[in-house]
């Protein structure tokens, strides 16, 4: 998976994958600290600018959107849920 921060593009195995701006921001955040857990408040702060009008449910939804895309393109990374703490981007088979 390659993330082009400049063009705000994501490619999986050389194929461009269409992601929404929010999806892109979330994946970039998880990728920056790949292998370690990023907690919900941090995600809300970074991706949604800590907006008060965001339903906390939205993080879970976006994780699910990203997972769908990652598995659909058979990416070698996956997002793991760490119960009670947050989410973590893992390299599959590592």
């Amino acid at each position, binding site marked *: 998976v390659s993330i082009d921060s400049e063009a705000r593009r994501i490619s999986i195995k050389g194929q461009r994958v269409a992601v929404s701006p929010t999806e892109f921001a979330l994946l970039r955040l998880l990728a920056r600290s790949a292998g370690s857990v990023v907690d919900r408040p941090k995600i809300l702060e970074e991706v949604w600018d800590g907006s008060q009008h965001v339903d906390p449910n939205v993080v879970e*939804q976006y994780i699910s959107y990203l997972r769908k895309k990652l598995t659909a393109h058979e990416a070698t990374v996956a997002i793991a849920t760490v119960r009670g703490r947050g989410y973590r981007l893992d390299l599959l088979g590592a």
Partner: protein
Amino acid sequence: VNGADAPRSDRRRGGPIRPLRLLSLRARITIGSTAIAAIVILLLVLVMRFQVVSVVASATRTLLDADADPYVATLEVDGDPDLSPPGNAQLVAVVSPSGEIVLSTMPDRVEQALGSLRSTPAGTSIITASGSEYRVVVEHPVNEAGRWTVVAARNSQAEAIVVDDLTTTLSLTGLAILLAFGVASWVLATTALRPVNRMRREAERLSVAPERAELPVGPAQDELASLATTLNAFLARTRQATERERQMVSDASHELRTPLAILTTQLDLASLDGNDAAALAAHIERAKHSVARLSRLANDLLALSRIEESERREQDGDRRPETAWSDLGDEVMAAVDRVRLIASAKDVTVDFDLEPPVAVGGSGPGIGGGTVEPRYRIDTGGMAQLVTNIAGNAVAALPRGGGIFVSWRSTGGEGVLQITDDGPGVPESFIPVAFDRFTRPDEARTSRPNPDPSTGAGALPGGSGLGLAIVRAVAERAGGTASLRNVPAGGLEVTISLPEVR
């Protein structure tokens, strides 16, 4: 601005023609044509007068030649002739080579000039003798006695009288013709302009009762008929626009009345419960919902009128915006993000899929990979309105846990935005009017089981009723179409087709 402009335009229009411009069209036509006729008639009179003068002169000369000829003929053969005086009223004089007047019927004052005529060569000339003009013919016959002089004369006063009489007659006739011409052109101009007057009267009547009246189109295929046709088309368009606006205002005020009445009731109830803090808070919360609905309505009305306004401007020649497929795709995704924010509260998921156009000679699949991307007559704001309005409706209609699917693809010269949900769909009777203003499938929306009380969505009777009207306006402005249908498997599918710019 007018004050500054007026003098300049006055100056531009100034000049010698300016007083004419103040007159009526009829007067200008009459004056113009009469002036031209006057010049023509004057020229004709002058030419005729000149012709008559030369005809009279040559006639006189012929007569003078005839007067002189018998004497010349006699003198050319006879050196000492016995000359008899000429006939009645002929003025002839014969002067011998020695200068003696052999014969003369001339008046004395002309005779005095004879001496000088002896030396003039033969021919015609005009002499003046004590105030009277005479046309004279001088001949010099020669015989054995020497060079004689024969002079025949006629008082040119008679000639002048003939010419003067004629000039007077011609002038009077010319004046009469001119007068008749002026009257005729006035009458003709009046007749020709009568349809204009009729049209003006009709237009006057029209300004009082603008609903029905039309300008009369005459039976003739003339300029006035085509002007009337053009004006009628303009009137029809204006009337249509006015009718649309009037309908819009009437609909809008009607729509505003309900939430305002609700709000008033809520505030009345709140003032009754002034001492109960909890009840007051509940009233305020409900009033907030009403206000939110009102402001949604106001925003949608504004959006709709802006679209219609820009449509009018484009008809007047403003450039339409054009946006590339991938930029619209980016906007679709951004709009999906916004819809997801509302959807997440109801646990509704919004998925999307972009199917980029097949790149021609491009670097392979992928957005923007092609060399020439299709473009569409819509701006990103319009695309955002399409997605948020359609998907926003779907979010409101869906039960908890529902799903929405947004796709933006390019197929066969069209960009297709399709938004499908797995909700209850709409009643079939709503489909034909779905895109009209202030229509809501309220039965379908409110009769769904268990409206969610936590979001408050179920408590409000639908949206502004303008969402799909805005969608249609945006799509049509882009030259495209909007349609919707119930999917057999359940749910609603809204399809927007936008033609590519060629």
